[in-house]
């Protein structure tokens, strides 16, 4: 999802670690115990989680950019306030997640630097442009809808700080999806042009949203360890199918057509979608999506322009510490 199974599998290095500890760790996982920061954990578990949680955090932060594009151009004050609140939430989610990653021993600075250097990934979905106001509705409805589908099982993931961060995030995401769907309802009840705008946005976002769930199970590299460690509770394809089944009736209510003429409903009621263009997914991940360079440039610019603030805060804290030491010595 926001981490998209991009992780290459960590080699199982338990052979090098204390075998008894590793067995005890797996027994705790199997018993549905949560692993907490001070607990012993295999190095590969720590590394996998650090990568997954930090990628998730980067995605929240980069995810502010496509929506931020429309804050100044929202059609009404109500919509503008809502969009601003939503973008603020995405920032907050990024911060919960960075803090959860830091409980594993990584520093915020090194995580952020890895992203700015292009070494750490973020979700492919944020490399698509927001061309019209209907894109804002579609992002709330579909992108946040897909994120919720992925994040609800993460509320039960084996690592306590990540699971608790997800509980907070999920509570807040509900507003995001509803505000998006409300925009879509309004557009679809509007003029022909507005409805066409909504359809156009759905056409452009549908397939990239399905790609958010990551590669098909047959090609997914790292699911085994993550499943065994109960970081991942459903496979990419299972979550994708759940999402499609939930979304089709919502599109029908809007009177919009999902841009997949081959889609059929099977005997069990599941909506079977056509083959996804994984070449596009790989291209976007490789940095060749429509907005990859813009997004990275925007993040680097913001980080660079914030440097003086970080320096000033550190200098002020150091000055206060010196003063306190001096006063204590008197």
């Amino acid at each position: 999802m926001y981490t998209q199974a991009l992780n290459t599998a960590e080699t199982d290095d338990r052979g090098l670690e204390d075998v008894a500890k590793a067995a005890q760790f797996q027994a705790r996982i199997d018993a549905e115990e949560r692993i907490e920061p001070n607990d012993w954990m295999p190095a590969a578990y720590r590394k996998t989680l650090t990568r997954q949680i930090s990628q998730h955090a980067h995605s929240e932060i980069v995810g502010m950019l496509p929506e931020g594009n429309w804050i100044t151009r929202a059609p009404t004050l109500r919509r503008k306030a809502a969009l601003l609140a939503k973008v603020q939430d995405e920032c907050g989610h990024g911060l919960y997640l960075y803090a959860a990653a830091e409980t594993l021993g990584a520093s915020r600075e090194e995580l952020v630097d890895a992203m700015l250097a292009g070494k750490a990934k973020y979700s492919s979905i944020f490399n698509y442009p927001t061309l019209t106001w209907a894109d804002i509705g579609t992002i709330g409805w579909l992108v946040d809808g897909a994120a919720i589908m992925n994040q609800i099982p993460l509320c039960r993931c084996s690592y306590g700080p990540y699971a608790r961060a997800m509980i907070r995030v999920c509570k807040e995401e509900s507003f995001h999806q509803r505000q998006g769907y409300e925009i879509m309802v309004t557009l679809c009840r509007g003029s022909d042009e507005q409805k066409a705008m909504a359809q156009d946005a759905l056409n452009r976002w549908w397939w990239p949203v399905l790609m958010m769930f990551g590669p098909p199970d047959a090609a997914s590299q790292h699911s085994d360890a993550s499943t065994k460690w109960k970081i991942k509770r459903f496979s990419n394809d299972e979550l994708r199918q759940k999402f499609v089944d939930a979304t089709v009736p919502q599109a029908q209510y809007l009177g919009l057509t999902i841009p997949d003429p081959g889609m059929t409903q099977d005997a069990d009621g599941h909506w079977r979608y056509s083959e996804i263009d994984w070449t596009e997914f790989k291209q976007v991940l490789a940095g060749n999506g429509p907005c990859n360079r813009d997004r990275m440039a925007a993040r680097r610019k913001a980080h660079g322009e914030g440097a003086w603030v970080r320096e000033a805060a550190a200098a002020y804290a150091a000055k206060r510490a010196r003063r306190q030491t001096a006063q204590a010595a008197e």
Partner: protein
Amino acid sequence: MATPNTPLWEVFIRSRNGLAHKHVGSLHASDATMALQAARDIYTRRGEGLSIWVVPSTAITASDPAEKGMMFEPAESKIYRHPTFYEVPDEVGHM
């Protein structure tokens, strides 16, 4: 020589698997190890916890409750941060 004052510690307990530590109260102890043992004896006599944190009370920076109005005002006027502010037709079901 006068006995130095014994420092105050704040006690946090994780009551169940997967939950965050929650503040339960304070206690006096000379050092962290004794604070942990005292916390166990004072606050978990009936198996209330799976794990305990103790934090020197002086390490806590708190907001002033008397200024809560000003402190939390920014959130008060923003009802649009809540899901119920948005209308989703009943036919669409839960979202």
